[in-house]
């Protein structure tokens, strides 16, 4: 663990990223307890610029709602969407990739055709269509994002498993009479964990971006306050109140940035290529 941390900390950007992410997470977890304000409540005149009213430090939106409160509640939802959709994508992609990678022959062919197939449809367009089918509700937004983002997971896991499959410890397991399922789960998959974690950190970032893009097109749940919703809602007033788009935009940029930096740090700390002996 110490070794992990020291390798991680060697990347200065990664430490900055972790701090940034920490701020966002704290805001998401504790924020709603610290601010009593309902983000949907109309409290002041519309389009109050930031820093004018100490009670509303970030001003108000088109309906006179507290932007700071929206930002805090939005952090929670945006992170949640990022996290849950990533987990869901992993839940699809990891088994598909693992089975395809471990069992060459027809399971691999079948699953990879399936994956390729998903990759052939432009993912953003697919997400839009899926949301049109499901209609935008939080869990469907999450599901749609997951459905368009699992193929890279599958490909990564398949690639890793495919190369691990040729390692001698897998053959050792087979020779010992262990079941393939046992070998795959206990011997192979723990070694894929590191690349999966790295990819997952980046996928959370991508999911947040994707959600904001969908919101921009009006395709997200209107009952939850997310950053994407904030930008989507503010874009019509971009010229009148640019800060309404700017503030959540910056929040997304920083969070995505933080996640990417953390991902790079994890890569440095976990990448087996850089520390052979531990792999």
């Amino acid at each position, binding site marked *: 663990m110490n070794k992990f941390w020291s390798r991680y900390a060697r990347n200065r950007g990664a430490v900055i990223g972790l701090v940034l992410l920490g701020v966002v997470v704290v805001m998401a977890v504790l924020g709603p307890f610290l601010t009593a304000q309902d983000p949907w409540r109309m409290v002041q005149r519309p389009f109050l610029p930031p820093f004018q009213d100490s009670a509303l430090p970030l001003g108000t939106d088109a309906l006179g709602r507290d932007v700071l409160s929206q930002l805090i509640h939005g952090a929670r939802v945006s992170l949640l969407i990022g996290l849950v959709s990533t987990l869901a994508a992993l839940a699809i992609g990891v088994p598909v990739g693992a089975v395809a990678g471990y069992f060459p022959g027809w399971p691999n062919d079948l699953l990879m055709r399936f994956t390729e197939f998903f990759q052939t449809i432009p993912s953003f367009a697919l997400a839009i269509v899926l949301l049109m089918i499901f209609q935008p509700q939080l869990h469907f937004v999450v599901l749609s994002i997951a459905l368009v983002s699992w193929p890279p997971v599958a490909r990564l896991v398949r690639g890793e498993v495919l190369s691990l499959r040729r390692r001698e*410890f897998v053959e*050792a397991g087979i020779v010992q009479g262990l*079941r393939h399922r046992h070998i795959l789960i*206990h011997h192979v998959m723990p070694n894929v964990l590191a690349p999966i974690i790295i990819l997952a950190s980046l996928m959370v970032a991508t999911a947040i971006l994707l959600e904001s893009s969908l919101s921009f097109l009006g395709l997200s749940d209107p009952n939850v306050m997310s950053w994407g919703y904030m930008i989507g809602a503010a874009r019509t007033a971009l010229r009148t109140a640019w800060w309404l788009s700017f503030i959540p935009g910056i929040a997304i940029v920083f969070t995505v940035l933080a996640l990417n930096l953390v991902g790079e740090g994890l890569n440095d700390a976990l990448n087996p290529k850089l520390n052979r002996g531990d792999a």
Partner: protein
Amino acid sequence: MSLLSVTNLTIALPKGADRPHAVKDISFDLNHGEMLCIVGESGSGKSMSANAVMGLLAEGLSVARGSITFDGQDLVRLSEAQMRTLRGRRIGMIFQEPLTALNPLMPVGRQIEEVFEAHGMLTPAARRDRVIDLLTEVGLPDPSASARAYPFQMSGGQRQRVVIAMALALEPAILIADEPTTALDVTTQAQILRLLDDLRRRHDMGVVFITHDLGVVADIADRVLVMQSGVIVEQGAASDVLLRPQHPYTQALLDAIPQLKGMTDDAPVPTAAPLLQVKGLHKQFRSGGGWLGGKPRVVTALDDISFDLQAGETIGIVGESGSGKSTLGRAIVRLQDVDRGQVLLNGRDMAALRGEALRHDRKRVQMIFQDPYSSLPPRQSIGKTLTEGQVAHGTPIAQARDRAAAILDRVGLDAGSMSRFPHEFSGGQRQRIGIARALVLDPELIVADEAVSALDVSVQAQVLDLLAGLKRDLNLSMLFITHDLRVAGQICDWLIVMQKGRIVETGDAARILNMPSSDYARGLLAALPGRDFETARAAARV
């Protein structure tokens, strides 16, 4: 005045490494036309010293102090640009892995031309001519076709010849060869060594030859330099160092070289029924092709392989890469299905088993793998690794743990190892764990596939000792697959020599190693490095 003079060279390692210096206070000289061998085990700093001479130290490494004098200038103090004018032109270098040392996307001729280009020499047309000359000189067949070939189209030996041609293109004063033959088969190695020796004489080059193989050293070295953990423990004329080593480490290294067996009479006594009967195994590999592809390429890995193995006997399967020896081993443990043939273990045909029956019977044949770094599941404790097989075959966990602990003890590791993970062990220790894993299921037969090839020579000796001891104590029956005739001689009772999927010779190990009857086996033996030295050493001992 020596050609190259290294004085008190110290190379610092980055903070956090296991020792402060990769190389500490080493000094040596190289003369014109001299072959200087640097020997040492992995981590001794031998390659690093050579890289320092080229000014090609890896990122994070730097020369802390000392000098490298060549042509009257201190290479350590030269700028990168100045260094560049020397590289290739005055100092050439050959690397270990001939596949990765060449750019896969560029024809090899072009890569050789680049040497001239880098130093602004010759016209493009003249360069092309020189390339042909060079390729001819290093003995490549059809040099002009070779020049157009890409690295992947050549064999390992051919590639290494290209790398040598490249290094020699500008007739440098010094050639640094970093383990240039380690990745090659023994016969190829012999050819390359001969070529290098030949070229050095013809061009009066000083050669720094880095190797871990004392046999090679014995064959080619004028002078030897022995390194251990970053320091030179001994240096001197080859004959002195090899035959009269002063330093205990040198001695240990020399002692660790497996000796080719002399003739003995202890031929195995055939018992009633053999433990293993291999009958008419065939296996072909096809690649390419497909429902729209062209003609598939067919490689015959096993061609009518038959032999018997008696209980308590160790049969060595030897041959060069591509001989099919590994395929044979894998077929016997059923990691590889065969096209036809039988593998009768105590009368039961393992090759015919399928599914659950196969899984159940797998415990009867176990395998020791080559690479101690990849043969243990990295994220699983040793205890788990040693018990899960037993548990899978129905042994209660407590009983399995007891047995695992007992076997660990037998292979020389304490029971506390059970809770540790592979990365906490050295290569030799991991190989012991691998052996323990094979033993723990109490198999009828063990297949060892190059089980000691990846180990340093001193560790190799220990593991061979262990195997020999186990064989004796437990009456193990073993199929020992190796490319190294010396190792085979050390542990095997009987040898099978394979070439291109066929058995070319079988017989008593001592007999084959002394009086091979097939041309192929004779060639293998002849190519074995250090044979003369072995004789000399044996003579010196006596």
